[in-house]
């Protein structure tokens, strides 16, 4: 089987779904003849034509608003927000319309829409090309939030999202678009949390680029005899907590790592769940390793690098936890 990048996996599932179901429509900035700024939609315009692959104006409220209209009218739109940093003008459409539609109509109406959102810091991204926005959407009932970290998960979770009847925020870690290759499984490996690496000393929850940083740290710590269990949540909302509790029952220690800042972030929710449901399994204080409390990822390369948890930071905290 051929190993593919996350970018290729996403393009492949979009293409397969468009071929299989003519209700599937792709829309966003530059997704048409140019194939998207990251080339995730390359070739789709040429294959499926201008009625199914729509270049939109630079207006995210319009992109998501149009997608909601399409979904309500029976289509299956996949809207691309070029960078997560640009999604804020569409917050009203997402929270007030898409997330509430089923509830507001007592189940009579649904909104089968996927919003694809490349997120996370990259070199040279600066304030407006490097944000992590998961906590904004994880807070909203009515939304499902996926955060795949491997090509195989991106492929299967996106298909799963496109087959659902409710709105999905699909977070794509753009730093992993082309850096990891993996063969695709034939069937969907489930959508809940999975253990990416089994261990006995500490449970670490991480996703996106941070998952790979944590796996790297775990590998280095293994040389010191420390055994790190790494849990990939894959779906951030609704969060699949049972595998987390099972892991904490085993290790008694928990650390959460994300690029987003700590306050009211995803890690805070994970920590609270464990404190509520597994306090008497804990043998050490819960730790978080996150981006700093600054308004955006800086542009200067040295500062930008410092704004993302490094493998060395992760190793230091996990070693502390193991020895605690």
């Amino acid at each position: 089987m051929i190993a593919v990048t996350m970018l290729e996996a996403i393009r492949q599932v979009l293409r397969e779904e468009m071929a299989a179901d003519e209700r599937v429509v792709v829309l966003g900035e530059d997704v048409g003849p140019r194939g998207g700024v990251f080339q995730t939609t390359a070739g789709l315009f040429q294959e499926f034509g201008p009625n199914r692959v729509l270049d939109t104006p630079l207006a995210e409220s319009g992109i998501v608003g149009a997608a909601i209209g399409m979904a309500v009218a029976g289509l299956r739109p996949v809207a691309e927000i070029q960078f997560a940093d640009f999604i804020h003008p569409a917050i009203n459409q997402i929270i007030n319309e898409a997330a509430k539609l089923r509830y507001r109509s007592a189940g009579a109406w649904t909104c089968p829409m996927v919003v694809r959102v490349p997120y996370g810091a990259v070199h040279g991204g600066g304030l407006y090309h490097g944000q992590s926005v998961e906590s904004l959407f994880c807070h909203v009932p009515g939304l499902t939030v996926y955060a795949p970290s491997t090509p195989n998960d991106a492929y299967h979770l996106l298909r799963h999202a496109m087959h659902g009847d409710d709105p999905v925020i699909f977070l794509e870690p753009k730093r992993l678009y082309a850096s990891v290759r993996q063969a695709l499984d034939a069937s969907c490996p489930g959508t809940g949390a999975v253990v990416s690496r089994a261990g006995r000393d500490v449970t670490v929850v991480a996703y996106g680029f941070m998952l790979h940083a944590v796996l790297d740290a775990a590998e280095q710590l293994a040389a010191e005899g420390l055994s790190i269990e790494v849990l990939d949540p894959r779906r951030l909302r609704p969060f699949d907590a049972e595998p987390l509790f099972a892991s904490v029952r085993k290790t008694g220690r928990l650390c959460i790592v994300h690029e987003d800042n700590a306050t009211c972030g995803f890690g805070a929710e994970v920590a609270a769940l464990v404190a509520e449901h597994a306090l008497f399994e804990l043998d050490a204080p819960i730790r978080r390793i996150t981006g700093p409390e600054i308004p955006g990822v800086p542009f200067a390369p040295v500062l930008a690098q410092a704004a993302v948890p490094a493998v060395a930071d992760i190793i230091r905290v996990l070693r502390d936890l193991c020895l605690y």
Partner: protein
Amino acid sequence: MSVAVTMPQLGEAVAEATIDHWLKKVGDSVRRFEPLLEVLTEKVNTEIPSPYSGVLTEIVTPEGTTVRVGETIARFEVTEVSETPREPKVEPAGLFPSETPVAVVPGPSQLTADLPALSPAVRRLAADYGIDPRALRGTGQGGRVTRHDVIRAANAHRHTGATSDAVDDREVVAPTALRRAIAERMVESIRTIPHAWMMVEADVTGLVRLRQGVKADFVRREGFDLTYFPFFVKAVIEGLRQQPTLNASWTEQGIVRWHRINLGVAVAADEGLLVPVLRAADGMSVAGIARAVHELASRARSGDLTPEDMREGTFTVNNTGALGSIVSMPIINPPQSGIITMETIAARPTVVGEGIAIRHLVNLSFSFDHRIADGLVAGRFMQVVRSVMTSYQPGDPVY
């Protein structure tokens, strides 16, 4: 204990550094903060102080070599680590502070370092096992009693409880708590559960070739052997997914159907059979199952399982083939609905099409609770398991 010295972060943009000169040699006694070596980077030429007091036992990285930040460069033998080792602080030559601004949200560890507190897990386990945790010697930071210390103490307690009494040419051995628990559960099972038994034969020639092709790479990557067992576990999971009737327990209240598949994995340890539980196994790849099973089995054999590891299993898988068996009639682990074994894989002549070929065959033996299911459901389940086992081919993904 032996500890590693790693290349510290010498300024935020610095990813690697070259060892210029070791100021100490192997065998030297070194005090903490004494200059240990000199390094060169694009930005910094500096001395690095020793992070430990102790004896330098190994220089991993020779002079003139460039290593990445965080890599091990030397090893020390220290008598005790009274404090968590920190990376030595050095003043960077550049403009930027070496202290990273990334938010490592401080845990309360700094606040309570002088006062070894009992964690919630330690309090609970100590109460469960009737152990006074303050009487234990803690192996955690600052002599803190860890969860592991309590489990160790509980196990030691249990083992010394077994006494033997020699009479003439026979001896009466008091069963260990584990032996007694196994005995009670097996008697309860055979007395209360109407066991029905079924066996199928599967042609696993494709699986044998698949494993042959990937096992060398797997052991290099993972550090342990890839057996046939995780492939079998994956097949059983698929069977249960398609026949969820069997992922159930018979209770006084009714038949409890479990939504999650938590597989008990039978592990033969010296003191007796243990069945730790592989939780939420339905999302895992073959490699993921292999790691999880390896981890459970290792802890089972080292006596490090906790009662939590054994709880909430819904079905049991057993690799009796590893012991050379070709047929078995396993006893169900109550309140589960079934137990399935994989027997020895053997090359045998068999009919393929109109000819006879040498193929790798295996027997899969299954006991199920006849109150919960009939032969029809059991047969369908076994067909799925057999079909997955038969369908593995060289080139299939293991990860």
